[in-house]
């Protein structure tokens, strides 16, 4: 009937159909990333569909996987969006949030189809359950964290990644990098440089700042006590931007004259720059040969073409400002570092800025046998850094290894017993969905998940609040002793955003889908 009044190509799914289509979409997404969950999770290969770019990446980072797959299902898009926000907000737990949301909807499907419970009732039950879950989580979290905790949190995050084998090494890297920030939590000061070659083990933390650029010809290769001027100005012919000017001359002499004027102008500019009392000049734009040679004559190190991120980061770590005009040297804040030298890592020459004004600055140099390995290592380190920064901001931690999930599930189950009405069923379903998280982790490890989870539940029921899964041995272990810990903030975000999204999808009863906009055929 709808087709009579809607534009061509518009599709309408109604009631049960609509609900099923969104539930299935969400479950598919959850199933897709499910196998990557936990320390024994598997990786995915992603290949681009663009025929010109057949590059691949290997990853088990939920947000990366989800953002790279083209989707047609509306509900699936909601899940992907949610994972991305999780990535942005806390940086970790992107897989968990998608899996949990998918599991919630899977439970909802059974309730809808078999028990015939109204979606609104399910939502009401979930809301109560979320409340209980949050209270439980709150009561389980510590109010302070120690350095050991940070180390443990980093290791827990890294244990599910490619760098698992070297997790202690990497955790140390990340923790010391984040601690240098001194609580500011500004990850800008941590630079990650990827250099394929060597092994993961040889990744290290470099004090100060590395820049993958080279020094101009004939200029000093090593300087101490550097005053750095950071510039964002054109150092080519420096065209005059005013009006649409152009040069028109009638003789060769005049050409030479104007060229001379141009050179003079450049020379004056260089002089002004030198007038700032700097011995290092770093420009975001190109530096042509002529000014370069001028700098070389004065014994000044000139570095060209630092990219935008690079220059801003340099400004942050050396404490200088990015200058574009050079009229008032007294007003320009120069950057400073103890030593600037060209060093060789692997086969690559890089510039090292040591002893920067901001002691927070440091660089993590990632090594690995191939591009894909360092790429994945970067993602893992990024996750770990984010979660550490978030933990420092909200200094509370909880036990990992499925410990909190089981505790939350149990609290919800208990609350469900005390609730009357069909809501209680929805609450138990919520608890079941929560249990799916450790269940999946155990499954991925190739252990008998049902057996392990029931043992874990029994342990919690007996009052061992710190019990969780020991994935190395496949037994229930004490998380405190094993040092498996997670950030409170991250877990909280997983629980709240997954339930918000699941509720939203469940409330849908019609899907109205417009015809895709027609695009001109690409020639």
């Amino acid at each position: 009937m709808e087709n009579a009044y809607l534009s061509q190509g518009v599709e309408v799914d109604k009631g049960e159909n609509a609900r099923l289509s969104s539930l299935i979409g969400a479950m598919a997404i959850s199933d897709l990333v499910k196998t990557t969950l936990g320390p024994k999770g598997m990786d995915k290969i992603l290949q681009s569909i663009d025929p010109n770019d057949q590059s691949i990446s290997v990853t088990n980072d939920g947000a990366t996987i989800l953002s790279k797959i083209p989707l047609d299902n509306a509900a699936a898009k909601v899940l992907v969006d949610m994972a991305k926000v999780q990535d942005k907000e806390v940086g970790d737990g992107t897989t968990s949030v998608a899996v949990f949301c998918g599991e919630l909807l899977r439970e909802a499907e059974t309730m809808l189809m078999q028990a015939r419970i109204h979606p609104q009732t399910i939502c009401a039950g979930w809301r109560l359950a979320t409340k209980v879950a949050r209270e439980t989580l709150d009561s389980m979290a510590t109010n302070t964290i120690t350095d050991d905790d940070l180390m443990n949190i980093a290791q827990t995050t890294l244990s599910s990644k490619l760098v698992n084998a070297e997790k202690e090494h990497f955790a140390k890297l990340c923790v010391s990098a984040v601690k240098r920030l001194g609580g500011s939590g500004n990850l800008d000061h941590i630079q990650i440089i990827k250099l394929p070659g060597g092994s993961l083990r040889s990744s290290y933390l470099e004090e100060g700042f590395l820049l993958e650029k080279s020094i101009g010809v004939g200029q000093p290769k090593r300087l101490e006590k550097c005053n750095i001027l950071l510039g964002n100005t054109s150092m080519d012919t420096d065209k005059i931007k005013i009006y649409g000017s152009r040069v028109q001359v009638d003789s060769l002499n005049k050409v030479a004259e104007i060229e001379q004027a141009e050179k003079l102008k450049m020379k004056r500019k260089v002089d002004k720059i030198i007038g700032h009392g700097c011995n290092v000049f770093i420009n975001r734009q190109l530096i042509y040969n002529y000014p370069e040679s001028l700098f070389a004559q004065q014994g000044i190190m000139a570095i060209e073409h630092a990219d935008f991120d690079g220059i801003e980061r340099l400004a942050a770590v050396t404490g200088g400002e990015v200058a574009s005009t050079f009229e008032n040297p007294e007003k320009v804040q120069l950057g400073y570092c103890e030593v600037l030298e060209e060093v060789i890592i692997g086969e690559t020459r890089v510039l090292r800025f040591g002893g920067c004004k901001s002691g927070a600055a440091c660089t993590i140099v990632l090594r690995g046998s191939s591009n894909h390995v360092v790429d994945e290592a970067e993602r893992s380190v990024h996750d770990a850094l984010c979660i550490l920064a978030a933990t420092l901001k909200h200094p509370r931690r909880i036990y990992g290894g499925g410990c909190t999930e089981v505790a939350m599930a149990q609290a919800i189950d208990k609350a469900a017993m005390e609730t009357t009405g069909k809501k209680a069923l929805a609450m138990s379903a919520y608890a079941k969905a929560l249990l799916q998280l450790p269940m999946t982790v155990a499954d991925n490890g190739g252990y008998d998940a049902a057996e392990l989870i029931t043992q874990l539940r029994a342990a919690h029921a007996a009052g061992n609040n710190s019990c969780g899964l020991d994935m190395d041995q496949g037994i229930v272990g004490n998380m405190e002793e094993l040092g498996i810990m997670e950030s409170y903030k991250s877990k909280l975000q997983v629980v709240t955003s997954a339930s918000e999204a699941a509720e939203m999808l469940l409330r849908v009863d019609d899907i109205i889908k417009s015809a895709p906009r027609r695009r001109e055929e690409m020639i």
Partner: protein
Amino acid sequence: MSMVYDEYGRPFVILKEQQAKNRVKGVDATKANILAARSISNILRTSLGPKGMDKLLVSPDGDVTITNDGATILSQMEIHQPVAKLLVELSSSQDDEIGDGTTGVVVMAGALLEQAEILMSKGIHPVRIARGFEAASQVAIDHLAKISEKVEFSKDNLQPLLTTAKTTLSSKILQPHKEKMAGIAVQAILDVADIERHDVNFDMIRMEGKTGGSLEDTCLVNGLVLDKEFSHPQMPTMIKDAKLCILTCPLEPPKPKTKHKLQIDSAEAYEELYNQEQKYFRDMIQKIKDSGANLVICQWGFDDEANHLLLQQELPAVRWVGGVEIEHIAIATGARIVARVEELTPDKLGTAGKVEQISMGTNSSRQQDRILVLEDCANKKAVTVLVRGGNKMIVDEAKRSLHDAMCVVRNLVKDNRVVYGGGSAEVSCSLAIRKHADTITGVDQYAIRAFADALDDIPLALAENAGLSPINEVTAIKSRQVKEGIHTIGLGLLSLNETEFTIDSTKGDHTMDMKELGVFETLIGKQQQMQLAAQVVKMILKIDDVISEGQYR
């Protein structure tokens, strides 16, 4: 076929290219129109009320919207049938005027059309039906005014406003946080409202959405929030007692609009031009500095050199600020929008107590989100609601819901008469109309009675969506209203303290006194709903010929 005959009896066709045109006439046309309109209202019907469901809309570009706001659903539905489009407009005019009840008005129109169809099959002329509806709607509106009650509120007693906002929010995704959100909505309105004059300037309330955090982190900022950052990373991130100037000219080299060509033919000319260029920048920045400003808001971009000069002159600046934002800043800070740097004078500056750049999310530069917050503006009344949420769709829906809630509160400030919700007002009107119908003789009586039947459809839909037995509930409301003479009896879907309705098994139905529950809607909103629905239905019924042009080739 529009075949006519000329004076010689030869047939000819008035409408050319018959094949390309689509034409329906007479009763068929009316019936087809009714069908189209009703299928639209059927889609919205399930979204009505606190237990209504949401719709998931996928745009042609694949963007996903999830909402249960009637106006939003219809506007994104790509409807091409002309009469169905009327309903879209109906809902959007309710949205513009009242801001709430956009679903209700469409459901109401659908119900009226359904009744009209039955009457037409009895052989009643559409125009007579329309006239009956018109008369009935007048009775309903008068009756609403009669049963309406005044709610008294003041700055110290905001409870009635909060209750209304909560009623509106209870049908939305914000339901779990409705206490807090209602508080935000009421506070925002009161901040900008002029209670004496019963006037609310909606322009002073801005809504900014940012993904991340959860819905609970939504907050009301006393001032403006801009999704922008300072133009140079080294500019201070906090300015106290800001004096800001608003520019709508780019801080870039001038580009004369007339066609021109500047030729350089000597080294001197080159030199001169260079100096002029430098001077141009310096003058520009100096003028800004001279005006006493310490913050520059610009609609356009900055040249790198200009940007650095700004930094040197300690003039924090924001570039690429959109036109709407510019206007808001101008209103809030009392600044004048200046189109040329030359025209900048100290009295054109605006003031803000504190301007701060705040970072959100994980602090890596790749994904950093920075926002600017302008607080304590010259015009104290400007406020911004900063909406946070788990993902983009939730944030968008939260924004729409808060907007609805604010509209309702605004309506109360404008006119503090209310009627009670939960279908009680509709049932009460329906009873009054039925009584009135008995006093009329002729065909109109049928039409008026049909209007009363259509009104019953609202509580029916409410009950249906909540999974209750519709007929039982509605008849129970009616009988209680008549028996007990209380016109505030309605369908209680939410109880006072809990978010859930309680089942009172002894009674067998969910009728409750809406006054006790505190569920009410504004009188103007309800009146507008009935009036608009009746008008549109009248318009649809009067159409007897639809000629649509064929596809243009």
